[in-house]
């Protein structure tokens, strides 16, 4: 069974752990570098990106997480996690982990009063969908959410709004979503990530 870490510095990490366990994956909380050892995948959850970023720097987690991503292990960032994974952040913010070739805008939809739910198309989820789920939209929960404003050549766009705004993307073994699949009952994104973990196990290097 694959061992998946969930970065537990701050934010909605328990929600991810619950979904992973409901899918029979082994999920562990990660707060210190030594807790990254032996992981086959890592989820960086939603929360406040500045809080998680500062704690990750203080406790020496940035370089080991970069190493994990560079070795081809699967890493998924949701919302604040997406911001931490991006190489480019608009309006002066410094990239923190900076492994995905994305430019992101923080709080792109406005303040909390503008937070919203919307059904979005994610065709790639068909690969992990039961027959009854095939072609179904995904219910996206966007909370003070970021937006991916542009992607590099090696990045596959998984979902975008009708106006073109990108809200989910994949670059090899790295996954980013601007919304919160862990706040819904739909486990397709977690299944998709576990499939990425299984694929990376064949190709990634030991860390």
């Amino acid at each position: 069974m694959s061992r998946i870490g969930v970065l537990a510095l701050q934010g909605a990490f328990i929600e991810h752990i619950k979904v992973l366990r409901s899918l029979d994956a082994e999920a562990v909380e990660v707060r210190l570098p030594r807790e990254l050892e032996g992981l086959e995948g890592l989820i960086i959850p939603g929360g406040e990106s500045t809080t998680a970023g500062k704690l990750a720097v203080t406790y020496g987690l940035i370089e080991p997480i970069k190493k994990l991503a560079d070795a081809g292990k699967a890493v998924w960032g949701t919302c604040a996690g997406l911001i931490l994974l991006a190489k480019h952040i608009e309006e002066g913010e410094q990239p923190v982990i900076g492994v995905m070739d994305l430019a992101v805008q923080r709080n792109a939809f406005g303040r909390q009063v503008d937070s919203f739910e919307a059904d979005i198309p994610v065709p790639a989820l068909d690969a992990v969908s039961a027959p009854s789920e095939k072609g179904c939209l995904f219910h996206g929960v966007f909370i003070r959410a970021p937006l991916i404003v542009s992607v590099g050549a090696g990045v596959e766009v998984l979902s975008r709004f009708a106006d073109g705004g990108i809200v989910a993307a994949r670059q090899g073994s790295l996954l980013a979503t601007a919304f919160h699949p862990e706040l819904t009952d739909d486990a397709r994104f977690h299944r998709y990530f576990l499939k990425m973990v299984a694929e990376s196990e064949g190709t990634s290097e030991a860390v």
Partner: protein
Amino acid sequence: MEKETGTETVKRGLAQMLKGGVIMDVVTPEHAIIAEDAGACAVMALERVPADIRAHGGVARMSDPELILQIIDAVTIPVMAKCRIGHFVEAQVLEALGVDFLDESEVLTPADEEHHIDKQAFKIPFVCGCRNLGEALRRIGEGAAMIRTKGEAGTGNVVEAVRHARAVMGEIRRLQHMAPEEWMAAAKEMGTPYELVVETAQLGRLPVVNFAAGGIATPADAAMMMQLGLDGVFVGSGIFKSSDPPRRAKAIVEAVTHYNDPGIIAEISKGLGEAMPGLEISEIPEAELLAQRGW
């Protein structure tokens, strides 16, 4: 594509994103920047911290909108603000200003002694204080998206926060051991909606995020509240009434993340300088106890 705003999911969801974090009271944009740099997951914008409200006396009201806007402009993390219990127009004003989260707070002078705000009527989420499970579920019934234990704000004394946290957690454990036919009697006894009693009994926790507040002054205080099972902490006077606010703020943030690691808490507690001066609860005249405001 339909975008639906102001839903229960997005209101409760923001509270979920704050979990494992520290929300700090700030009275100036400079304080707000110190809090953000220390790793606060949100700030509470107000004119006076509770210790000063206590010392100042008189009627405490919503803060000046100008100050709240300056704090909103100074930081990228969520900004909360307080309105008086029952003062729904202060709440409307704060929502119009773009505040991310409203605290219907006993720290301010109540505007209505009978009724709390109908929080369902707002698009932004509310956090409310409680001393026990009944009070928590009444506020959730009114639409609160987050709960905090009241503690006794502005005292630097954690004893009331512990009392209220233990009351809520103990009452939840009691519900969990009840037979289903006993839930209605429990709802009647606590004066709360039956459906919320059932939901709480089945979840084994409150249906919304539950933070500690009211008297937290040290990293060990914060970690203790986390070990008692709360989801995060509010620190009011505890940071900016101490001798070294930036260091203490950062230490409390780290203590909340590493709450189960006494070695780390010991390390970050070294040489923090003076904590805020504390107040003995029994020496406060009963009429000045803030936790008794609201029901």
